[in-house]
C-alpha cells in the first residue's frame, strides 16, 4: 500500500510499473488491476483553462488518503493499493491522480478503484485554482458522496 502527494510530475506508467515490481512476491496472486488516471483537461465549464494550482493540507491529506486505502482493504478482497496525487502548479495533460487496485478478481478491483477516486474527490483536502483568460478562480463544485455497490 503506497500513498503519496507530490509536487513533481507524475508518469503513470512508470509509477504503476514501479509499484507492481514491489509486489513481485505476490506475482500470480492477483488476476486483475483496475486503475484510474486523472489528467488535467484544457477546458472546464465551457472555458479554456491555461493552468491549475493544486493546494493541499500537508499531513491531513496523506492521513485521509491512508484511511481511505485502509477502508478499501477492509471492505474488498484486495492484494494492494496505490494512490498518488500531484500538487502545485500543473498544466493541461499533466497527470493529477493515479489510483491502482490489485485484486484476485476484477469486481473488487473495479469497485475499490471507483470508491477510492470518488471518496478522494469528495473529502480529501485538495483545492484547485484555475487560471484562465479572465484570471484566477477557485473551483467550487465538490463531488457528492459515493455509495459503492
Amino acid at each position, binding site marked *: 500500500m503506497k500513498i503519496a502527494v507530490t509536487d513533481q510530475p507524475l508518469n503513470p506508467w512508470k509509477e504503476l510499473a514501479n509499484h507492481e515490481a514491489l509486489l513481485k512476491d505476490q506475482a500470480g496472486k492477483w488476476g486483475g488491476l483496475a486503475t484510474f488516471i486523472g489528467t488535467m483537461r484544457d477546458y472546464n465549464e465551457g472555458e479554456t483553462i491555461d493552468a491549475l494550482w493544486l493546494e493541499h493540507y500537508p499531513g491531513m491529506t496523506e492521513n485521509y488518503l491512508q484511511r481511505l486505502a485502509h477502508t478499501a482493504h477492509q471492505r474488498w478482497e484486495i492484494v494492494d493499493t496505490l494512490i498518488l496525487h500531484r500538487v502545485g502548479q500543473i498544466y493541461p495533460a499533466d497527470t493529477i491522480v493515479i489510483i491502482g487496485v490489485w485484486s484476485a478478481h476484477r469486481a473488487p478491483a473495479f469497485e475499490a478503484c471507483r470508491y477510492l477516486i470518488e471518496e478522494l474527490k469528495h473529502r480529501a483536502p485538495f483545492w*484547485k485554482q484555475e487560471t484562465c483568460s479572465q484570471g484566477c478562480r477557485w473551483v467550487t463544485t465538490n463531488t457528492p458522496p459515493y455509495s459503492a455497490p
Partner: protein
Amino acid sequence: MTITVKFFASLREQIGTNQLKLTLHTPLTMEQVWTSACPNTPLPEYLLMALNKEYVQADAIVKEGDEVAFFPPVTGG
C-alpha cells in the same frame, strides 16, 4: 493556552493569512475558535473544519497545543 489556526484555499485568501496563533483563557469549541480568530467574519455556510488533522464538527472542544484548520469544500482528483 496557545493553539494554531490554519486556513486553506479561498478561505486563506479571504481571511488574508494561512495561519495564526491564538491564546485562549478557557477551552473553546471549534465554532468559538472561528469567532475568536475571525471576529468580523460570520461562519461560512459550507465550511469544513479539522482538529489535529481530523475532520470534526463545530462543537468539538479545542485544547492546549491543538491544531485547528478551516477550509472550503474540497476539489481534488
